[in-house]
């Protein structure tokens, strides 16, 4: 539909006003779910791909995200809380002692852009807080970021709490950040590793599918 393409296009240009006004026009004739999927999320997907390919950089992503939020603000009241479609729920944060949060924010933007529900605990998050929040919010994935070599080992504490509390079958962990690698993720027992924000979103999608699949099996029994 043309108006959804327009929304996607203006979102990619980071035009908050246009995305807001077009979304208001669109709700007159298009179901909100379609606007979300084929307008806002479609636009953010393009941004994600271009960012991944180094065609655009962080400022363009931040601008597009602002435009997406402008559209989401219009749509949110139209969804009843339980009907707000979600690809899954993810708790994210930068681990304790780390105030670098560019990468983590970017993952949050990309996740929301891909239709996930995101609970962002911010930076300097204590290990217990990640697990408590994931439990109380019934989230499937904990995403942790560290940008300092001094703080990357805190991620291991979070993973150990998940294991100690016997939550491994329904809460998955993924890590990212400049000093972190797939080997490091493996070493500390994380379920996954995202080398950049777009890759993190793909990996989180896989983790959620795994957990949902497993729960599906159990229900059948």
């Amino acid at each position, binding site marked *: 539909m043309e108006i959804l393409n327009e929304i996607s296009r203006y979102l990619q240009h980071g035009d908050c006003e246009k995305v807001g006004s077009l979304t208001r026009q669109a709700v007159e004739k298009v179901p909100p779910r379609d606007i979300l999927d084929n307008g806002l999320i479609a636009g953010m997907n393009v941004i994600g791909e271009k960012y991944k390919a180094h065609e*655009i*950089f*962080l400022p363009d992503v931040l*601008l597009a995200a*602002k435009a997406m939020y402008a559209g989401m603000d219009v749509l949110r009241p139209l969804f009843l809380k339980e009907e707000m479609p979600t690809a899954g729920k993810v708790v994210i944060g930068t681990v*304790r*002692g780390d105030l670098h949060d560019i990468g983590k924010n970017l993952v949050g933007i990309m996740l929301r852009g891909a239709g996930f529900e995101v609970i962002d605990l911010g930076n300097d998050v204590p290990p217990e807080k990640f697990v408590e929040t994931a439990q109380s919010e019934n989230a499937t994935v904990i995403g942790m970021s560290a940008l300092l*070599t001094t703080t990357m*080992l805190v991620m291991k504490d979070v993973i150990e709490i998940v294991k100690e509390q016997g939550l491994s079958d329904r809460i998955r962990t993924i890590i990212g950040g400049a000093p972190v*690698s797939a080997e490091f993720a493996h070493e500390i027992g994380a379920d996954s590793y995202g080398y950049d924000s777009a890759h993190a979103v793909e990996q989180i999608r896989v983790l959620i599918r795994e957990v949902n699949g497993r729960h599906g099996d159990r229900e059948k029994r």
Partner: protein
Amino acid sequence: MTNLIDELRSGTILVADGAMGTMLMERGLKQGEPPELFNLTRTHILEEIARLYLDAGADIIQTNTFGASPLKLSSYSLGNRVEEINRNAVLAVRKVVEDHAYISGSCGPTGRFLKPYGDIESEEMYNAFEKQIDTLISSGVDIICIETMIDLREATLAIKAAKTISPSTPVIATMTFDHTPKGFYTIMGVSTEAAVKGLDKAGADIIGSNCGNGIENMIKIAQEYKNYSRLPLIIQSNAGIPAVKGDKAVYPETSEFMAEKAKELIRIGVAIIGGCCGTTPEHISAIRKVVDAFGKKTSSL
């Protein structure tokens, strides 16, 4: 002590110091604690680190003020102690080095993004730099070092603040690049060419790159800078990308390796060579030896 710019112009290659953060961690910096807290409570440790780098042969010693911007300190509820934190850091280094080395006032990013992509106006950011740099200069630094920048607009604001406060104080400005398949860019999309031109235009006296890369990538970055720039160059490389061994993060590049590669930086014509994350007094000492063995640059700037 001679003027830094004159000294570089005469062809002297200078050695800057190495990492601060890792040194502080070995001396009790806890997770979650801002490194600048040492400036209030443990200045004797700042003195000890300055002494180690001075003894290792550094000509330039940095202050522990990387995160001492009012915008950053306020997130630790230290916003009302900006002057004290910056002044104490300078005085601690001065006490040790007297006039045997240049003191460089470190000034890192504010951690905020400018409008429209971020949430802060240029004026507010400028005022924050002005406050920090004003304190550093009035406390007696010889150089202002604006480092680890990813946004050219932010770097420009910092350089302008420094040059407005004290036009005669030399300003070093360095950016941090990622190695992408399309070349070196900062996270914000600044290419090496744009960095050189932008930092020069903003009024920096010495430009270069720090952090984010090991020395092999830094050699490539230095070469690109050299292609675009007439200004003296500074390179402060990480000791590689860290790996985890047991319960510790370990930086892989040894002092021997970095010193050997530093020869390449000298060949390219880099004027100041120092270290960033993971480098130690041993790295600086090894680089010192390489620089001394080389002597002065034949083609002065």
